[in-house]
């Protein structure tokens, strides 16, 4: 399966397949401290290797953006590498590199995060640099002008020239009417066109402050040492008054929506989404967990229903997938997608996916299917500990979405308690035609590829033509 993602970073690590069950208490301990300026610091010891990952998570992302400024969070993320009061553009990265570190950043719908992974004794370097750019970003206009062009190129690369990503973008804009999840993380092209450096200065001032951030550290470190370092580097930063975001809820959908997306392509692509709920929004706390389990019944591996029945059984689909994310700030969708197999149409595939949904409404899932998913969850929780980065990312995202890192220790239990009846209940409640949106990629000719892929040789090597 391949459901297109929300720009560079996305919440996929929190999708069910990689969700992690609770580990033995002695290894899963997270130490928490909040500084006087409101910065929350979360530390988890992992002594397997002499490394540490340090991540700063800000509670801002594309779902915070007003109309006209879509993409500003991601653009600001790029500008965070372009100098501060004390650091020249690019110097942040050069210092991290010279210390053997890996670094990057990602923006999602609900967060913007920055990370460095490096030898554990270099942690103070990461802290000093991150503290500097938390409140003292330079945002020089000439750098902004160039970086805006870079982000436009990123948009062309990741969306404009990718027919399935383009379909996903149009699908979201169609499905959501009010929710900011209708906007792409990278921003609409017209909004990027009009973006000003002053907009970024305002956005930075509004959201980048210790009391709107979480610092997550996982690795070969002593929590007391990390807390004292955090106090030393981040403690002096002033807090900011953070305004609450308002609204964001879609009105109830009143019927199936359909959209066609025409783009140069060779294969059609089908995308279905049902408006659902999320943790913190559901009338019953178990509902999002039941939806997670439902998505795994369909697509929790090669033995799940979509692979078994649509790819292998009926040979209808070349690929088919399902996904749902209980861990989002605002309610999202349960998504189904697929590409028809040779000799089959996208309409046939749509009917087959709808029949799968109908079956979930009609009959309870088998206990054996649930047992298999529980075992996968337990194993995934163990596997996840092979990566300090993955552990930190989970802590940071749960905290930033507003659910709290403690959920990391509990959610496998929540998932494991879900019954066949509960899955049937959420299928009946949420997977209904009234809340469905369907997008179909209608391929447009790539004629020039077939006709003109001939070699135009300069050097005249004999083997050039094919």
């Amino acid at each position: 399966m391949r459901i297109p993602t929300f720009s560079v970073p996305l919440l996929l690590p929190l999708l069910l397949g990689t969700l992690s069950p609770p580990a033995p208490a002695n290894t899963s301990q997270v130490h928490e401290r909040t500084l006087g300026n409101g910065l929350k610091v979360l530390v988890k010891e992992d002594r397997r290797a002499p490394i540490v990952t340090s991540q700063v998570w800000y509670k801002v992302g594309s779902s915070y953006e007003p109309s006209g400024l879509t993409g500003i969070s991601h653009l600001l993320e790029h500008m965070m590498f372009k100098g501060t009061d004390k650091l020249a553009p690019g110097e942040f990265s050069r210092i991290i590199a010279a210390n053997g570190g890996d670094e990057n950043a990602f923006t999602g719908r609900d967060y913007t995060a920055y990370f460095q992974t490096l030898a554990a004794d270099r942690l103070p370097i990461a802290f000093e640099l991150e503290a500097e750019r938390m409140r003292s970003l330079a945002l020089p206009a000439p750098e902004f002008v160039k970086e805006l062009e870079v982000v436009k190129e990123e948009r062309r690369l990741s969306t404009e020239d990718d027919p399935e990503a383009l379909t996903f973008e149009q699908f979201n804009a169609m499905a959501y009417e009010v929710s900011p999840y209708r906007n792409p993380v990278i921003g609409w092209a017209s909004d990027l066109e009009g973006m000003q450096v002053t907009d970024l200065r305002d956005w930075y001032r509004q959201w980048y402050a210790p009391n709107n951030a979480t610092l997550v550290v996982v690795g070969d470190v002593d929590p007391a040492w990390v807390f004292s370092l955090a106090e030393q580097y981040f403690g002096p930063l002033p807090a900011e008054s953070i305004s609450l975001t308002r609204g964001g809820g879609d009105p109830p959908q009143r019927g199936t929506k359909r959209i066609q997306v025409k783009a140069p392509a060779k294969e059609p692509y089908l995308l279905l989404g049902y408006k659902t709920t999320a943790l913190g929004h559901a009338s019953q706390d178990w509902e999002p967990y039941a939806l997670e389990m439902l998505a795994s019944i369909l697509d929790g591996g090669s033995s799940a229903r979509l692979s078994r029945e649509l790819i292998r059984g009926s040979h209808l689909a070349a690929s088919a997938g399902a996904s749902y994310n209980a861990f989002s700030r605002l309610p999202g969708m349960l998504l189904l997608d697929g590409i028809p197999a040779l000799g089959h149409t996208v309409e046939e595939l749509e009917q087959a996916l709808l029949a799968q949904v109908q079956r979930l409404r009609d009959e309870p899932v088998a206990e054996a299917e649930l047992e298999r998913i529980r075992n996968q969850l337990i194993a995934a929780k163990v596997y996840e500990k092979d990566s300090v980065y993955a552990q930190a990312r989970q802590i940071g995202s749960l905290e930033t979405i507003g659910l709290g890192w403690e959920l990391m220790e509990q959610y496998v239990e929540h998932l494991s308690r879900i019954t066949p009846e509960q899955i049937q209940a959420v299928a009946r409640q949420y997977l209904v035609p009234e809340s469905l949106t369907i997008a179909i990629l209608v391929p447009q000719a790539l004629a020039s590829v077939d006709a003109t892929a001939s070699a135009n040789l300069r050097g005249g090597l004999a083997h050039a033509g094919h």
Partner: protein
Amino acid sequence: MPDTNLLPSPLRVWLLFVCLLPLSPSLLATPSIDTWENSQGAKVLFVAAPDLPMLDLRVVFPAGSARDGDRPGLASLTADLLDQGAGDWDADTIAERLEAVGAELGIEAQRDMAAISLRTLTRESALDQALETLVQIISRPRFAPADFNRVRANALVSLNRDDQDPATLGQKAFYRLLYGDHPYAIDPAGTPASLAALTPEDLRAFHARHYVARQAVIALVGAITRPQAEAIAERITSGLGPGEPAPSLPPVPANASGNLERIHFPSTQTHVFTGQAGMTRTDPDYFPLYVGNHILGGSGLVSLLMDEVREKRGLSYSVYSYFLPLAERGPFLAGLATKNDQGPQARNVLIATIQRFRDEGPSQEEMEAAVKNITGGFPLRIAGNRKIAQYLAIIGFYGLPLDYLDRFNERVRAVTVETIRDAFQRRIDPSRFTTVIVGPAIIDQSQ
């Protein structure tokens, strides 16, 4: 979608290549590698990692697309079919047996090798069921006609999707143009015509020829003891014939002159791929070329190409260069994507930066920074059982010395500005580059 045929992306190359770095002895001892030959002649490499109750296992064979001959796609389709029915079990049963115990299976065919990786819990019931399934997959694949037809049909859909992505299209063309008649020209995914001509018997013969015990390399990292590792390694090859060594691949001939292919494509960006045959895994110039390329285009945000193309001019989101070291000379490839009217300018900056680096070499400061980055970053790159298993498989497959990791840092530190410049001047020459440009037809003023 079976994506096992995809070309190595720059990221994957980076993982296989940059990550194969040594541990700085002052920070951490390198993982202690136990190695032996099992009773059937397979090479085994084992690192005990007792902290987590899990095992990462990677088995590789010289069964990549370089062995396709006149049947492109043969190696990939063979690999894709392994878990679609084996021994007494059909595809559903295999998937159920693995996933019921939380095991994860990955199979892929690259140019040199086919790799089967398994991640499982070491709890005995899980470990045993996962291994029992793996053994059948490796040694008794069915290649049943119905499964073959289904997987091949889906591979054709996958080829169509490749054709709608300008980057994939361009990279395939680059290999085709650069390698000509050499086996590395073959795209692992094959072509519609070559897939159509394949039969289950072709796959069965390819499997019998190349999935053989004496050519297998088995890498194990996890919470098992040496006796357990020995027993597992015996079991994995128990159903395989001993086999014969695969013949050596032909050397890659030098480009006499440059060549260029344009592919017209209705995209908003123009993609540029340019380069030439690079180096082998055991190349005498490996370290100067590796460290040099790290400076030129292999170190992300701080590379020279990133600075010239992106940071100074805002021309591209992604710009890179890399050596992909293979059994014979893999490519040196540089690339970028930019909006169409900037294509000629971006390409000129790309080539000029490579040319200047070739002529002048790095500065002392640039070289010292790169060495610090590579040696200081080593602990990150072996932090994780899966990563270590990948390195072990590469060491075993390419016959790298066992102290390769231990001595890597000292070899990186031995590189100088002069050895980098010397190696680049002998090995890299932009006037002989193979270039592929994908994008709409636009008058290129530089031509």
